[in-house]
């Protein structure tokens, strides 16, 4: 028994889309990022989390990924750094492991990650949450076709035998 009385709701005045230059773009990115943050916070997916580093800059985030139970990484927790470029979400965010991670697709020195959706397969419909979930599953199921850490890749192959 509820009715949305649109006539009574003060509608935001339609924005003048004429002079929407650089400042407006940043504003929309910020809006997108804060929306993503909200969604992420409310989603309560177990084992993944991320938050802006400081209240001044919404483009630098810190994330936490816990290895899924039953994988080699179960019980471990990894910190990652997430950097959003100014033209996000049209380009993927730059993500690195801060904690050392011995994994076929992670460079143990730099923490760089080899994940298709973070490179050529990126799409604007992905969000921080989907990235984090992909990373979490990547921990359990490495893509040995394109290893960054060959030692880890070899070990993985051996263990699979």
């Amino acid at each position: 028994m509820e009715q949305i009385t649109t006539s009574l709701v003060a509608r935001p005045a339609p924005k003048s889309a004429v002079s929407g230059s650089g400042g407006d773009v940043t504003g929309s990115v910020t809006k997108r990022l804060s929306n993503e943050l909200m969604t992420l916070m409310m989603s309560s997916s177990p084992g993944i989390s991320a938050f802006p580093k400081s209240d001044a800059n919404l483009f630098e985030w810190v994330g936490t990924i816990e290895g899924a139970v039953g994988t080699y990484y179960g019980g471990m927790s990894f910190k990652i750094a997430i950097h959003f470029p100014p033209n996000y979400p049209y380009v993927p965010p730059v993500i690195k492991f801060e904690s050392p991670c011995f994994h076929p697709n992670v460079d143990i020195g730099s923490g760089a990650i080899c994940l298709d959706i973070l490179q050529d397969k990126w799409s604007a419909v992905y969000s921080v949450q989907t990235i984090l979930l992909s990373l979490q599953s990547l921990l359990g199921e490495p893509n040995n076709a394109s290893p960054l850490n060959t030692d880890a890749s070899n070990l993985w192959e051996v263990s699979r035998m």
Partner: protein
Amino acid sequence: MQMRSHGFPCFVVEIIMAASEALRNQVAAKWQDSFNRLNRTGVGISGLMEFSKAWAVAAEFLRPRDLGAPPKDFNTHEIRSAFDVLMQCRMLPMLLESFVACLDMSICQRICGRNQHLITDDVTRFMTEYDASGDPDVIGRLVLRLADWYFAWAPGGELGQTISSAYIVNFQTHVFSVLPAAFAAGFKRLLAATLALFTEGATPGVPASVQDSRLWPSFELLGLADRYESLIASVCYEHIETHVLETCAGKWDEPMLSRLREWMAEKVVPWMLLPYARGAKTAEEARTMLQGVGSRFDFHVCKTLCDLRTKEMFDIVIDYPDSTHALHDLKECLQRVDQRTQLVRALRKSNKKRLLHPGADTKDILTQYVSLIRCLRVIDPPGVLLFKVADPIRRYLRDRPDTIRCIVASLVVDGESGDSLVDDDEPIQPLQSAQVDDYTDPNWEPEPIDAGPDFRANKPSDVVSTLVSIYDSKDLFVKELQVLLAQRLLAVTDGNYEKERRNLEILKIRFGEAPLQVCEVMLKDMTDSKRIDQHVQSQSSSVMHPTIISRHFWPKFQSSKIQMPGQLHEIQEAYAREFMTFKPDKKLRWLSHLGSIRLEIELQDRTVGADVPPLEAAFIELFSEQDVWTLNDLIARVGTVERSAALKALLAWVDRGVLREETEDVDMQRFRLLERVPEDAGAGPVGITTAGSRTALAEEEPAVLTVQQQQAEQMKVYWKFIEGMLTNLGGLPIDRIQTMLKFAQGYDRTVDQLGAFMDAARREGLVSVKDGIWRLNR
């Protein structure tokens, strides 16, 4: 001088040996001179003889004697001539000396013939009696007896001022020296008895000596009045205190101060005339003499009354307005006695002890606070006292979760229930807020001298403004008003919203139009939905009469997602279709769990009618599909319902005798529809359980979320953010958490509120804090 010449001769003899001729001549002249003075013009030593006789007569006349002894017969003429002789010889002072010495011996314990220490004996006797009985009468008799002694021994006035005053001093000195310490206490009781005689009138029990008119002159004679002046005053003070406590304690409905003053004038002043206006010749003179002491006693009356009222203040406030007279008394007393700080301290203390504790109802605290406002405004119109006393109450109320609800509930006058905080007589006026001083105002006055630093002279003066000003913003009140209004509007079933309309108009005057616009919309929704319903009914009549409300303007409702089954759902659908044609740009979203449904259930052998909540209707509708359902299946059909709520709804049908519970085990509860009344069903238990279910229904939660619940709901969101930041950023100080929370949309809490929330989280073991850094517990 005389004394020295008396002993001169033998002194001279020694010196003569070595003295010069001139000295010898001088001494001889002195000797001759003395002799001549005593002998006067007598022949030979006849003058000397005469003097000696006169001395003997006078000394015998003056010698103190026992009161019991027969008075000696004196020849007045003879005595007078004897005194004349002595006077001529300038030997009167000598006589006085000897008289005084003799007096000493009579009074004190020195040996002087038969009549030694006559008075001492008497005093000891009386005091022993007093010690045994404690009767002030004994002291009275003692005083009278002493006066008798005084008169018996007093030298006649004709002997001149010197002798009589020397006599008085000596007599008094010696009497005081023999009076034991216990006399003071006895004397005090005697005085109290005389005062009681004046104030309470002559009663049979009053001892004779107290009523004796000679008593006060005797005090005066013996110098007791001067010596025990402080005692006399303290007797009066004590009497005043007892009287005030006796007559005024707990008596708040009459003006007591004026009555006390009358009592003073009628009863105490006549007594005061005795000690304080003795020797006054005229009434005018007496009045001047009484002035000083009279105002002292008046002050004491005020002080005692003030002390008493200060002690009783809390109860006086409770009794307001019946205790108005007591307040006026107190006001007058406070002007005379500076006890404002005591009053504040006493009130704060009793408030803390009796009011500001978890056992007290918020409503009671508010009522008391409002009474306090009114009471202290009587005593102290500028409001300094109120400000000092009210501060802890306001701070306490601010911490109470239901304060706003209570205030708002009392603002929305019910009409029938008369326990509203606000007087109906009080004119409804807009909320006032504190203003800055207007120094151009010609009637400007500085703040009262004992005002605290935060004191504001032009603080809001009406009760509602004061209550609302407990909180910094009135937004909270408006929100709470909204919730209350929502509850009340939904509770109205007869379509008569006049009362709510009236309340809203009154509140608009207080809070202004703008903040209450939302409430206005809510009220409009109610009338609109009636109109819409009429229209829809005219198109295709429906058994349903929904209330259509605007989501954005109503407080959040208890969320529940019941799906109405069967024909109930069809009715909803039909109505929604009709509504869509009437208002194509709007969509109905059903809050199926609210409202009530009148049902008539036709069973094989009977028809059951009932007004039931939607959930019960939904369940019984399902039983038209099949006769037996398990609880879990039923819940699955209607959507998300709490198990306990579902069970309650089903048990309500069991109580009505429509269903029967067939329990095999707790998890698989099954219910069967009773198409026929089973033979074994007794009437008794059914009746009882029905009553039970009714009360259960009455306790159902209100449909609208309270402001608190809404806040708690929001806080859940913020908690997610806090959790997120603490997970990723490690430990954070509270300030950082506060600034980071700006990422959460609509976050508007203060650091203090956040701190309280974090503390609560810590108590639940979710976080821990060390050196001001908060961390998640893992």
